């Protein structure tokens, strides 16, 4: 090969090389995760239809005991007034001069209560409660403002059917 054609070949290779680098391209590296997606630890979010709720049951009387043991230290014995957000009371206060956004006065869905307690409470030991305990705590909180009766059993069927006092209080700003 002559010097000229050597140079020509090198230039051609260089051009080809830079072309293959310049292309916008990448390799798909996601791993199939069908099985993973079914596992309980990847199904924590519970929508208002309650479809992802775990099986279990609980009532206010059990919830009251768990609350005193694991929640009152931050939320106060009556669920209002300590270092954490107020949970109970103040239903109907939203239009007053001193509105209080408690679970019972403000939250639109009871399923949110289960979702939130299970994933993050008690704050010093998240994921330490059993489904029955979470149902019982939810029942206790809701019963304090007579959203459900004292002897009402909350479970994966009944919880999504609970209607919160402020169910229709929210106006969506998306899309604008």
């Amino acid at each position, binding site marked *: 090969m002559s010097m000229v054609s050597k140079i020509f070949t090198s230039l051609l290779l260089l051009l080809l090389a830079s072309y293959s680098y310049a292309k916008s391209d990448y390799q798909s590296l*996601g791993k199939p995760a069908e099985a993973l*997606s079914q596992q309980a630890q990847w199904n924590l979010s519970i929508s208002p239809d309650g479809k992802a709720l775990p099986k279990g049951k609980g009532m206010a009387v059990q919830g009251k005991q768990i609350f005193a043991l694991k929640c009152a230290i931050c939320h106060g014995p009556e669920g209002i007034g300590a270092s954490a957000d107020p949970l109970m009371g103040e239903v109907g206060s939203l239009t007053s001069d001193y509105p209080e956004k408690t679970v019972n006065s403000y939250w639109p869905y009871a399923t949110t209560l289960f979702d939130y307690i299970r*994933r*993050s409470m008690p*704050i010093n030991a*998240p994921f330490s409660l059993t489904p029955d305990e979470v149902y019982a705590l939810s029942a206790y909180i809701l019963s304090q403002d007579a959203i459900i009766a004292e002897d009402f059993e909350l479970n994966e069927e009944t919880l999504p059917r609970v209607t919160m006092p402020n169910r229709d209080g929210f106006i969506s700003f998306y899309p604008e």
Partner: protein
Amino acid sequence: MNKPPTQSRRQFLQKAALGGALAGTVSLPVLANADKLEFPDDLPEWMRAPGGEFGNYGQPSKHEQQVIRWISANPAAPGNGVSWTPLHDLQGTITPNGLHYERHHNGVPQIDPEQHILLIDGLVDKPISFDVKSLMRYPMVSRTCFIECGGNSNSGWRSNPIQSQAGYAHGLVSNAEWTGIPLKLLLKEAGIQTAAKWVIAEGADAAALNISIPLEKLLDDALLALYQNGERLRPENGYPMRLVLPGWEGILNVKWLRQLRLTDEPIMSRDETSQYTELMPDGSARQFTFINEAKSLITSPSLGMMLPDNPGIYQISGLAWSGRGKITRVEISADGGDSWVDAELQGPVLDKAFTRFSLPWHWQGEYAILQSRATDETGYVQPSREALIENRGKHGFFHYNAIVSWEITEEGDINHVYGF
């Protein structure tokens, strides 16, 4: 509050050249022992001995130790709270990583990147997961933008103006260059089904924070960020990976991201119902108010500083930002909003990012109220506090973006006041 009479309001603000006011202040060192030592004793000690050693990771000067995030957390649950960026001590537009604001719901997780995965599932053709090493091989882009907590500046709703320094009242906002993977690449790899409208993002912290985000935003300009100002994310900012949604409130920029589940409806989690919604006077609540509207803040002079020279020339300087696009104008008033002058915007002015503004001010010792007012490219003008409260009442808590007023007394002291 009555405004003391002033001589000429129009003269408060002048785009004047600095002129000769600063000349003639430098004096030369006195030469002693010139016959023995070539250099005199009054050379500073740091020029007479070798300096410190190299450092594996640099730290600020020991003389700047007061420049810190201000922490406000729940004593009963110290991982639940915020820390504020000291905007009043910073210049330029980039927030250093150690000073980026924080909002944690249950502490900063120390995540082992070898054990962390991101799962994309729900209304997709095939659920897929990624480990960190795989993600590092994807094409990345960099994007400078602010992130602002929906609760930033919420002390403004109170009846009395809080006497905190600028950053410690308004510094739940920071601005960084984020580098990562356009989210749409990963979502498309999973195969987006037509019924999908929302994405439930979940973090791997001890709050397992979950929140609904419109799919449209994730397909637009959202990043799966891996780097912050050139280095890997700090633990308190989501290491090993977080969402960055330019212009959308902080809570949606989920840190320590572990899952994106595509759905047809929002999940109605605690942080999109109980929190980050704005209660209106009629008892209704605004929900899914994602965008941080235009806002500005004078960072200097501001509360905690004082004006030493009377008369004197002071460089008014501050930050403006909008979640809807670029800042097009910042006006300054020194008379509580009776008259306004355009400040200079420092370029490049970036979309949904901090914009630094400045204006030289000739102070003659008069009582003054300094304010800044931002306008963005949609024509939206930052409201007065009066107008904001007229529209939203006083119990909205989130999305407070009203004009901030600094009172300058005749002695040169600075207080926070509500507008006039």
